[in-house]
């Protein structure tokens, strides 16, 4: 019984890792940047959702608005900042690390702005769904309606993104712009605009992750930092440029963490994550679903 409970919880947290990994992969594919600011973008969107819930008393109103805000924020960050960064800081020793530094700077900036507005104390993001586990006969499993909602929301996001990428012109343009930007440009695709849409999608995916996971824990400016690390590990497992890989990587990592938590102890989970990451990078650098050799940017 414990085995199945652990598995179910792992799938629920793995779904969240998948969303975060997806957000990182979407930005990585189009800009070759690992967006460390993603955690703060997601958490800011969640704060917006929290604020709307507090005023409207309705989670279902806040959720789509938080996602919309996440998309706009992602697009703005690209438009105001990242596009500019690509033109500057091109030479010298800082050129290679400039994207990492810049996104870390953004991470700190957004988190301190959140702290200035809402303070650093823990907030409770209410949800209409019960956090109590389903009961079968006499056995209550730790998997609650909220967990089920997390898994469903992730599945919906994945289906929508998958559909867009596979069946629409926009998806084709997104794929072309990330695969061969110059040739895509020659073929008439407005690469800069398409890239901006990629940032918006990533922001939306992060916002979904923040808005569905936060009701199960607490909301603070740093509350999604660990999710960023898990999302990164999941994305690398999947190859960093594969959407399917990100999802599967997230689920595998979630289930793996859940079992480590259950059978080994909570304090080694993240160290285990580090070792998983190193081992994946050393034995299979392009990840399990990636298209090109990774490790080297």
């Amino acid at each position, binding site marked *: 019984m414990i085995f199945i409970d652990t598995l179910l919880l792992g799938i629920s947290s793995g779904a969240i890792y998948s969303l975060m990994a997806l957000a990182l992969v979407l930005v990585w594919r189009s800009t070759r940047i690992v967006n460390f600011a993603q955690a703060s973008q997601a958490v800011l969107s969640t704060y917006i959702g929290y604020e709307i819930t507090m005023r409207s008393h309705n989670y279902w109103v806040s959720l789509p608005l938080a996602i919309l805000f996440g998309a706009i924020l992602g697009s703005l960050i690209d438009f105001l900042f990242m596009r500019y960064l690509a033109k500057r*800081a091109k030479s010298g020793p800082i050129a290679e690390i400039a994207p990492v530094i810049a996104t870390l700077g953004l991470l*700190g900036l957004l988190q301190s702005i959140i702290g200035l507005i809402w*303070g650093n104390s823990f907030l409770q993001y209410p949800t209409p769904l019960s956090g109590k586990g389903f009961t079968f006969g006499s056995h209550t499993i730790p998997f609650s309606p909220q967990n089920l909602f997390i898994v469903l929301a992730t599945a919906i996001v994945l289906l929508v993104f998958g559909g867009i990428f596979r069946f629409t012109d926009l998806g084709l343009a997104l794929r072309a712009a990330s695969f061969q930007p110059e040739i895509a440009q020659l073929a008439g695709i407005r690469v800069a605009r398409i890239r901006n849409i990629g940032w918006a999608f990533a922001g939306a995916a992060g916002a979904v992750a923040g808005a569905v996971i936060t009701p199960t824990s607490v909301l603070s400016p740093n509350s999604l930092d660990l999710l960023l690390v898990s999302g990164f590990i999941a994305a690398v497992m999947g190859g960093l440029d594969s959407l399917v890989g990100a999802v599967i990587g997230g689920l595998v990592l979630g289930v793996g963490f859940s079992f480590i938590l259950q059978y080994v*102890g909570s304090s080694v989970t993240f160290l285990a994550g580090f070792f998983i990451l190193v081992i994946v990078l050393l034995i299979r650098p392009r990840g399990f679903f990636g298209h090109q050799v990774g490790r080297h940017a």
Partner: protein
Amino acid sequence: MRKRRFTSLQRGGLLLILGILLLVTSNFVDELRSYQGAQVAVYLVAISSIILLTGYSGQISLGHGAIMAIGSYAAALAFSLWNISFEFAILFGMVVGTIAGFILGVAAARLSGPYLAGTTLALAVGLPTIADQFKVLGGEQGLNFDIGDAPGWIKRFEGSDFTQYRWFFWLMTLVALGVVWAITNLLQSSFGRNWRAVSNNPVAASLAGINVARAKVLAFTVSSALASLAGALFGILLGIVTPSAFPLTLSFTILTGAVLAGVGNLAGSIVGAVVLVAIPEFSGALSTHLGNSQKVTANLPGLVTSLLLIFVVLFRPEGLWPKKVWKRSRQLNN
């Protein structure tokens, strides 16, 4: 073509004079300034470890806070558990940190850019949790690392009002200046030239007969030795080594210091270190001015740091205090 270089001995002499001047100055400042001076010295060592790694060998680390923690814990363990004198405890911390850095460096040499950044980030997140796992590491209470007052001969020389913080200032300033001297020499040796070659153009470097992987591992190892030294000094300065002394933000802080210094500019590391210490001071004064609300006090330092970081990346990639020859040498490279 190049500006005149000092010989190693001349640089050593200059640093020694600077050191004596600083130590004399310490007699005229109060306790807080002594403490902050010691803090600058610790940051200086930590920042130069990043500059050596990133500026000269082209690798990035978001996990140097974790390596500092390793050095600090090893030193504190040797000091408090085995009653080794603090000099040897620091040395032991450095040895352990160097070994850890070597192991990490072997993995790191195969990674680059964001992959390396993410991997070291995962280390920085994962490592501090170990402290709770083993009883010997003291959990949240941490380990005692109080090395006490200055040794007797300094007290006899300087008088009995020689306070502990002034003693820390002396100790750490001398160590930091020694580190700067050692790194400048190292960077001008064949090791330094190899590192620069590897970071500028790995393919050309390997064609010229440089073992790229070995050079990268070596850079990571040396950098870790310095980071663990900084960690051990940091532990002494705090008097106690706890997991909360090495949060994720510490890694970001020293990286920020290196970026503000200009990642390829060792001389700038002093600017980076001073700015890192000045930011809390400055934002403290500013938040008092703004009415001292709790939200402002807690978040202003982070805001200032992030804004500085973004400003430097966008507008001053050569650091806050640019090396004058920078532009010229860049043209030469192209």
